[in-house]
C-alpha cells in the first residue's frame, strides 16, 4: 500500500454551468425571455406572476416553471390566469438548479416570457444560474427591514428588486427607506420597486420595467 496524490481542477459548479448554457441556448433559439424569480417565502412571487399575466397576458404568452419543495398550490393559481405552467418538485433541495429547469424547459418553446419561480429562500438560489436573462429578487416588509442587509449577495446580483406589501409597513414597524438604502448600497443598477400587490401599488412601474426588459432581451435574441 502506498500513497499517491492527484492534482486536479474540477469545479463543483461545472455541471450546473453546462445545463444553464444549454437552457440559455434553447431559450435564445425559441425567442423566449426568461426571469429567475427569487425571494423570501411568501413574499408574493406567485402573485406577481398572476398580476403580470392579468396586465400583459394579451401582449405576451406567459409561461411559468414553479419550483417548490412540495404541493401544487402555485401551479393551480397561475393556471387560472392563463399562464402555461409546470411544477418542479425540488424535493430536499432548497433551490432550483439548471438541471431541474433543463427537464422542464422543452414545454415552453412557444411562450414569449418564462418565469422560473425559485424556492422561497434568499440564500442558495443565488449560487445557481438557471440560464435566465434577468434575476428578480422579491421581499416583503414582513421579513423585517434588515432583510436586505442580511442577504447582500442575492441583492447585489439582482436586475430588479421588489419590496412588496408596503401598505403593511407601519403595522409591522418596518422602515422601507432603510431597505431602499441597503439595496442601493449593494446594487446601483437595479430598479427598486415599492409594491403592494393587494392594493395595486407599484404594478405600473413594474410592468414598465418588465416590458422594457422583455423588448431589450428580444432584440438581443434577434426576435
Amino acid at each position, binding site marked *: 500500500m502506498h500513497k*499517491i*496524490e*492527484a*492534482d486536479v481542477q474540477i469545479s463543483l459548479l461545472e455541471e450546473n454551468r453546462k445545463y444553464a448554457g444549454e437552457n440559455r441556448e434553447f431559450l435564445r433559439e425559441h425567442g423566449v425571455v426568461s426571469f429567475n424569480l427569487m425571494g423570501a417565502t411568501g413574499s408574493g412571487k406567485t402573485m406577481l406572476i398572476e398580476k403580470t399575466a392579468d396586465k400583459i397576458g394579451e401582449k405576451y404568452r406567459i409561461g411559468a416553471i414553479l419550483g417548490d419543495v412540495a404541493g401544487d398550490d402555485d401551479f393551480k393559481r397561475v393556471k387560472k390566469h392563463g399562464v402555461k405552467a409546470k411544477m418542479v418538485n425540488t424535493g430536499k433541495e432548497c433551490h432550483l438548479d439548471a438541471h431541474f429547469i433543463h427537464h422542464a424547459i422543452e414545454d415552453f418553446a412557444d411562450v414569449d416570457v418564462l418565469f422560473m419561480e425559485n424556492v422561497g429562500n434568499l440564500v442558495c438560489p443565488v449560487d445557481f444560474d438557471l440560464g435566465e436573462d434577468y434575476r428578480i429578487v422579491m421581499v416583503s416588509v414582513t421579513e423585517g427591514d434588515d432583510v436586505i442587509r442580511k442577504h447582500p449577495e442575492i441583492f*447585489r446580483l439582482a436586475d430588479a428588486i421588489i419590496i412588496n406589501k408596503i401598505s403593511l409597513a407601519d403595522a409591522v414597524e418596518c422602515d422601507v427607506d432603510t431597505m431602499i438604502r441597503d439595496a442601493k*448600497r*449593494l446594487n446601483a443598477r437595479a430598479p427598486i420597486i415599492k409594491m403592494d400587490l393587494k392594493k395595486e401599488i407599484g404594478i405600473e412601474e413594474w410592468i414598465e420595467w418588465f416590458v422594457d426588459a422583455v423588448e431589450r432581451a428580444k432584440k438581443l435574441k434577434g426576435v
Partner: protein
Amino acid sequence: MSFAQSLIDNVVRIAEEKGAKKVSKVVVEIGKLLMLNPEQLKFCYEVVSKGTIAENSELELIEVKPIIKCSICGKEYDTPFAICDCGGVLTVEGGKDAVIKKIEMEI
C-alpha cells in the same frame, strides 16, 4: 447537499480511475461569495461519503477571496457593494466557484 454530492461523485470517480483503495484527503477551494456554508459542506460530505472509498477521509476547505476594486481610484475592499466613496463602480472578480484541487489516496 448538491455540492456535497457532486464533490463525492467526482472524488470517487477520480480515485477509481487511479485504482485507489481508499481516499484519505480531499482539498477544495471555496469562493467566499458562494452561499455554500463550509461547515455544512463538511457535514454533508461526511454523510454522503459513508459507504464509499472516501469514507472517513479528511476534507480540507480553502477559502478564496474575491478581488473587489474600484474601477476609478483602484481602492480595494473586503466585501462587495455597489459604489466606492469616490463615486466609482466597484468590480468584483472571483470568489464564486468551488473547485476540487487535490485528492490524496492509498493504492
